[in-house]
């Protein structure tokens, strides 16, 4: 059965016994939107270079069942060197044995959405489905209509997370193809601070499709560190839609690291709903084989005095492909906006492809915005300089590529994560 038919049949099964679900109206609206707009195709401008043909063919199973035990899950690549809170989901379902809560302040909630709906229903209802709009977004609509479980993080007014949350999603496709739709809701209240690491890994030979939606609300004077580490090896298809909604005087640092995975599409959207918002969007993708990585971003400067800085860097080998599309939208009220955007790519093979499109749309008249994209090879001059000092071509290339990637690594505020990234870069290069 193809994916859309499967969704339709799953939704009617859900709807038949959903009267008591407080999400029903949101989910039903999403489903109606999905029926209306369908899944994206190459004819959709935002999906021009990104084919979901393999995904829409379906043949995935939604199932929490995994024969893996906690020990083998740990070995599968949870980033264990970092002292952090932990939530682990396997095929979309919470694996409670591996949850860790280190925070001393019990007012901070780190839970699965399913569990949190019992005790924190009011906050969830207030935020759920309010930021990730489904209109024209088939993938978001599909997630909203039929989400699996996911994380709920709630940092109340004035509270600060002392440790990051490592939110690990494991795809176990050892038995059959897997389809999961993680849904995370992160609420950082006024003057609070949160820190989240999304960590994606996969095991097994079968194909999988993971369709994530993150809704993130950051209230006045609050801050958030948000990292994504995508290392789901094998035939994994990963669609990640993140909508950040930020009120005034907020600081958000977001770093996306795309390392493993057959097919990755990231949609990262920021909406600045107050003055003096500060949004940093950084990304690094290192691809080889026939990997495909697409980073779409959108920053809505809706209010004055906003600052956004975006830098995505890629290193491509073999016949891998990358897509970058960054849109900065400066609304008519967003005077004194400073917005910077760069996409840089190094191609290490003749068969690698990059499609990049930096975009600025400016409706205010007193702003400072720049954007740009580069695609090239490693520069000859630094290469020769290093070799003339006795460093082999291979080592010289490593030094230069590490230096190129270090520019993004240094945006990460968790030293252990930087170290892990350095090891991953070493592995990938």
């Amino acid at each position, binding site marked *: 059965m193809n994916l859309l038919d499967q969704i339709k049949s799953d939704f009617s099964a859900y709807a038949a016994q959903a009267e008591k679900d407080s999400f029903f109206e949101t989910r039903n609206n999403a489903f109606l939107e999905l029926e209306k707009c369908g899944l994206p195709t190459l004819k959709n401008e935002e999906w021009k270079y990104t084919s979901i043909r393999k995904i829409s063919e379906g043949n995935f199973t939604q199932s929490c069942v995994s024969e893996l035990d906690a020990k083998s899950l740990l070995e599968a690549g949870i980033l264990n060197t970092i002292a952090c809170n932990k939530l682990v989901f396997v095929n979309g379902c919470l694996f409670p044995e591996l949850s860790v809560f280190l925070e001393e302040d019990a007012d901070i909630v780190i839970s699965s959405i399913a569990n949190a709906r019992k005790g924190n229903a009011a906050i969830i209802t207030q935020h759920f489905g309010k930021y990730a709009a489904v209109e024209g977004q088939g993938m978001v609509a599909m997630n909203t209509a039929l989400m699996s479980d996911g994380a709920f993080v709630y940092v109340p007014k004035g509270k600060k997370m002392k440790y990051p949350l490592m939110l690990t999603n494991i795809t176990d496709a050892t038995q059959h193809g897997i389809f999961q739709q993680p849904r995370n809701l992160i609420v950082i209240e006024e003057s609070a601070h949160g820190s989240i690491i999304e960590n994606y890994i996969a095991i097994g030979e079968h194909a999988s499709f993971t369709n994530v939606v993150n809704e993130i609300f950051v209230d006045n004077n609050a801050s958030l560190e948000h990292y994504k580490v995508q290392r789901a090896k094998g035939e994994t298809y990963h669609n990640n839609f993140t909508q950040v909604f930020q009120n005034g005087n907020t600081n958000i640092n977001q770093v996306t690291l795309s390392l493993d995975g057959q097919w990755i599409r990231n949609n990262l959207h920021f909406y600045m709903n107050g003055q003096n918002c500060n949004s940093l969007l950084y990304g690094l993708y290192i691809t080889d084989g026939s990997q495909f990585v697409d980073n779409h971003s959108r920053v809505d400067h809706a209010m004055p005095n906003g600052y956004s800085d975006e830098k995505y860097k890629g290193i491509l080998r073999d016949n891998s492909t990358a897509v970058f599309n960054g849109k900065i939208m400066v609304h008519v009220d967003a005077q004194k906006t400073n917005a910077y955007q760069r996409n840089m790519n190094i191609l290490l093979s003749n068969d690698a492809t990059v499609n990049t499109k930096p975009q600025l749309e400016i409706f205010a008249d007193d702003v400072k915005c720049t954007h740009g994209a580069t695609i090239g090879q490693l520069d000859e*001059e*630094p290469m*020769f*300089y*290093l*070799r*003339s*000092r*006795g*460093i*082999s*071509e291979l*080592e010289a290339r490593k*030094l*230069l590529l*590490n*230096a*190129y990637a*270090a*520019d993004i690594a240094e945006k990460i505020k968790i030293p252990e994560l930087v170290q892990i990234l350095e090891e991953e870069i070493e592995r990938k290069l």
Partner: protein
Amino acid sequence: MLSINNLKASIEGKAILNGINLDIKPGEVHAIMGPNGAGKSTLSSVLAGRSDYEVNDGSALFMGKDLLALSPEDRAREGLFLAFQYPVEIPGVSSTNFLKTAINEKRKYLGLDPMEATDFLKFMKLKMEEMEMDKSLTSRSLNEGFSGGEKKRNEVFQMAMLEPKLCIMDETDSGLDIDALRLVSAGVNKLRTPERSFLVITHYQRLLDYIVPDFVHVLYKGRIVKSGDASLAKELEVKGYDWIKQEVESAK
């Protein structure tokens, strides 16, 4: 140490070197002077192994080995060092990491174990004191944001660290004010030993006031047309290059 015989080289089909003959023995300092476009920088590039140039004829033996058959890195490991006219800025590569990699790559080539991290740092500290280098230079990215003088001093510092047998200095004086020139020259003079040789390429004589050569050669139209001792440089300073050009043309 270096024996160049009838070396001819071109770039994009254009002949630049038209038969260079030069013999450098251990401990000697040779200066190559000449007007713009004579082929001075081409000579250093060809010797260091820059791939843009094509060697059309001739040979260069370095310590008895066919230099032109070696990769740039192997030339360096054999003991050749090129001090660049324009040292490259490499953001993100720390000077310390760069030097450690370079030293250990050379040691590997020579069949030696890599230098331990602590030994390396001790060695570097020693060399920094010797060369009067500012500590901050080595903690920064390689040449990034360095002034012209700092870049050239860093070249000489690398030379001290890598302990080459033959140092080729490509227009080291270009872009230096007199104080920087003195500092750089003082560094080079500290590195002069009875075994180590230098090939100093320069347009102006003033560098040779500080690094006094044993031999001076004039390069013109890709050939060495005149050789002499340090006094030849003084003569060129007074008379310019025109009289040499005339000598060459009238001899045809």
